[in-house]
């Protein structure tokens, strides 16, 4: 049994409710037990840190304090949202790196009758525990409808693999966890060089033109590589690329139609859930056409790249991964 404390974050019951619904649909087949942190509050996203230092970290730390208090037989907090994950991890790390900050934050927490000793909890992202705790083998075993024929680009976004205070990811620039997981579901994973490039973050709100440029880079490159959809692990990435794609098209005079789904939605589908059980249909750029490819009986013959002709070219070095040999890799 895999038990965790869940920090859902504000988006999960509104803009990213598809993420929450699909997450709920996979806990049972994977024997995941998620216990919500009681009375959690907003992590401040990327906004509070730019206004006041101590209040921003105190806001985040209240959640850590609540989680630590609630701890029964797990000390791992799981956040499905990359921004929440980063903020929680960052507060935990900086409160240790800078003891004066830790002391002040605890002084503030004391005003609310709380305290948090930095380093008490493990803060992890949902995909981290799925790939490394639950494991790709267990995920493969739960697959009923392989996603064969669905061409996807894995989009990890920025705040998940970076700055990576606890060295949890295979790489900062081209991590393979999402690729591996999608392959385990049977999807055709396209190598996506922009997998950890930025979606624009809050720039959709404060400088839309800047954000449109970033969204355009992501969507056009995914389209160029023949992707039928993008797959994300973050509510903010999903929101920016989904809800602002239309305006981006207006701005550039383009006509992209690139759906973006949460990885948990594809997991749910592969585990045999119906589209409406995993929140499909609430996306603004419809995934209907792309999903038509799932379930069609096509044997897996396509390879991501054509094999190099023998003797013609020069051999390539093996690809680097920090976890080489250490953690599970897709066979």
């Amino acid at each position, binding site marked *: 049994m895999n038990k965790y404390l869940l920090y859902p974050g504000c988006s999960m019951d509104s803009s990213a409710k598809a993420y929450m619904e699909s997450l709920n649909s996979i806990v049972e087949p994977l024997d995941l037990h998620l216990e919500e942190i009681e009375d959690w509050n907003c992590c401040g996203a990327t906004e509070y840190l730019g206004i006041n230092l101590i209040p921003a970290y105190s806001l985040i730390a209240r959640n850590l304090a609540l989680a630590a208090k609630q701890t029964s037989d797990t000390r791992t907090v799981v956040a499905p949202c990359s921004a929440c994950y980063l903020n929680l991890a960052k507060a935990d790390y900086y409160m240790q790196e800078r003891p004066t900050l830790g002391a002040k934050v605890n002084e503030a927490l004391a005003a609310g009758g709380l305290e948090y000793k930095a380093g008490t909890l493990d803060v992890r992202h949902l995909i981290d525990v799925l790939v490394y705790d639950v494991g790709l083998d267990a995920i493969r075993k739960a697959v009923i409808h392989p996603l064969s024929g669905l061409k996807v680009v894995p989009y990890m976004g920025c705040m998940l693999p970076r700055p990576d205070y606890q060295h949890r990811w295979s*790489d*900062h*620039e*081209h991590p393979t966890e999402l690729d591996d997981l999608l392959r385990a579901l049977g999807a055709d994973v396209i*190598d996506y*060089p*922009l997998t950890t*490039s930025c979606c624009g973050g809050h720039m959709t709100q404060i400088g839309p033109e800047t954000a449109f440029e970033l969204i355009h*880079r992501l969507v056009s*490159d995914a389209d*160029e590589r023949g992707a039928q959809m993008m797959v994300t692990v973050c509510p903010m990435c999903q929101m920016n690329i989904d809800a602002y794609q239309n305006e981006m098209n207006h701005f550039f005079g383009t006509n992209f139609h690139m759906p973006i789904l949460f990885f948990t939605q594809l997991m749910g589908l592969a585990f045999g859930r119906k589209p409406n059980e995993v929140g499909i249909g609430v996306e603004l750029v419809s995934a209907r056409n792309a999903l038509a490819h799932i379930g069609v009986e096509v044997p897996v013959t396509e390879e991501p790249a054509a094999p190099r002709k023998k003797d*013609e*070219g*020069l*051999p*390539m*070095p*093996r*690809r*680097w991964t920090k976890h080489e040999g250490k953690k599970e890799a897709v066979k």
Partner: protein
Amino acid sequence: MTERVGVYVCHCGSNIAGTVDVVDVANWAAEKLGRQGVIIAREYKFMCSSLGQELIEKDIKELGLTRVVVAACSPHLHEKTFRTAAKNAGLNPYLVELASIREQVSWVHSDKAVATAKAKAVVSGAVSRVIENRPLEEIKVPINPNTLVVGGGIAGIQSALEIANAGFHVYLVEREPSIGGHMAQFDKTFPTLDCSACILTPRMVEAGTHPNITLLTWSEVTNVAGYVGNFHVTIKKKARFINEELCTGCGICQEKCPKKVIDDVYEAGLGYRKAVYTPFAQAVPNFPVMDKENCTYFIKGTCKACEKFCPTGAIDFNQQDEMLHIDVGNIVLATGYDLFDARRVSNYGYGRLPNVFTSLEFERLSNAAGPTSGNIVLRDGKTTPKSVGVIHCVGSRDKNFNNYCSVICCMQGLKFAHLVHERTGATVYNFYIDMRTAYKAYDEFYQRVLEEGTLFVRGKVAEVTNAARNEREKGKLIIQVEDTLAGKQRRIPVDMVILSSGLQPRKDAKEVGKMFGISCSMDGWFTEKHPKLDPVSTMTEGIYIVGCAQGPKDIPSSVAQGAAASARVLDKILQKEVALEPIKASVNKEMCSGCRICNGLCPFNAIAFIEDDKVTEINPALCQGCGTCVAACPAGAISGTGFSNEQIIAQIDGLLLRNLEVQEAV
């Protein structure tokens, strides 16, 4: 008996006197430490000068001093000077003690009062200690005139030749099938653009045929015992599966071998070799080796094509690894470097983007004897690039990877720019943080490359990507960088990227260091005895380090170090015997419980357990007097001459000024 102690406090110009009131210290010592036996305390501007030394010698003779304390710099620098002075005046040199009031006092404090008080304590500690010192005699041991050189790159070859030419025997051990090292892989050498093979191969041949050199390739040192003058070395001569007596080096076996293997070593992964192979045409020796892991016969039990075609019957599938035991007096380590693994900088795309190459790959690509016969082409094996970006500082000067500057990469990057320009006419961009061309004729080479029209961009490259944003970038590698001199982010599309990768210590440097009893720096390079004044010696007598094993360096510096170490070796050989410091640990057998805790701790392999007696013994010739075992022994059975318990306790009492309390109580 009461000892007669002289205390000498050095000003070291203003080095000490600027922070410590040296007159006060001397007066204090004379006044307060009189009961301890101090009969004279003086201060002087430079104690290490001949006048300063004469002062001490005169006092020894005229005042009959039996102990001397010099409060000055670290014993690393001038202990020998003052001991020699004492010896000249007829006092046993080991009755002189240095109190370090420069490195440990004046240089690390700013408050004069505090520093002066601490200097007094340090002097007091030294006085208490020196009284417990015992006269010691140096140990003389004969020197074996043979030398072991480990590593057959240019530094090791140079070192071996210098010693061999002087008439002494050298064992030159090389792990790979041929000597030559990294230099054998290069096409041209900076800044003169000499053909690397043309200047290297004569040296290789000379080393291979020299009557005073025993060449052991495809061999590795597995054990080292003994001490300066008398090392016993075990060498594993790996089975070549070739009878060297019969082999003529005709090459037919390589031609007939059906098994192609990617050559990760000599061809840097960019070309192929056979399962039986000599790495390159000018290999020394030119006997091939059989790569057991890839040989079809060893894998499947059939094939033997090489055996069938060998005209002299030199193939021997039954050959076994051989263990050789040799005795040498000195050892030179020339074990070289590994290239930084550029795959770790994943934003540069090496291993993911085909047309990103490492420096060694490019060396092979541009080498006429390389896999493309010197044609600079993309990884498809045929397209000539029209634009090339050379990225400096890959893996170097970066806290995420290696902290240090790899020294050679700037010049290497300039050489690449020149070669690309000369061979392809492509537009070349060089991306650098700081241009480091500090050596004879190096900056002139930079000027030349500037003149050739290479476009320099000052900025550390942020990423290399194949995600195009417009038509101009389609199908290209885009180098994204801040041009820091223009203050703008730029995206420069190119066909090929060359990473000027840094150098790093051999991955087994730590274990090798341990085997030879020497240490590695934080970065993993072998540590020299003194960074400026003794760069080729180590803290272990008789072991020398040369070339990149000691730190990143270019060919001229490697050669210079190889020769320098040989001079040190010849100096030792010609002395015929060597005096060993008598600072040694010894075991009191009565007290030793045979627990063996100390056995694994000795960094110099000086401790052996005597099974018959069930006690531990220390070889005085191997012991370097580090004191590790003394501190570790739970029974207190080990004591160190020069570091006896009596000395240490007395010094602590002195440091804490307990000696004064006793005195005052009395």
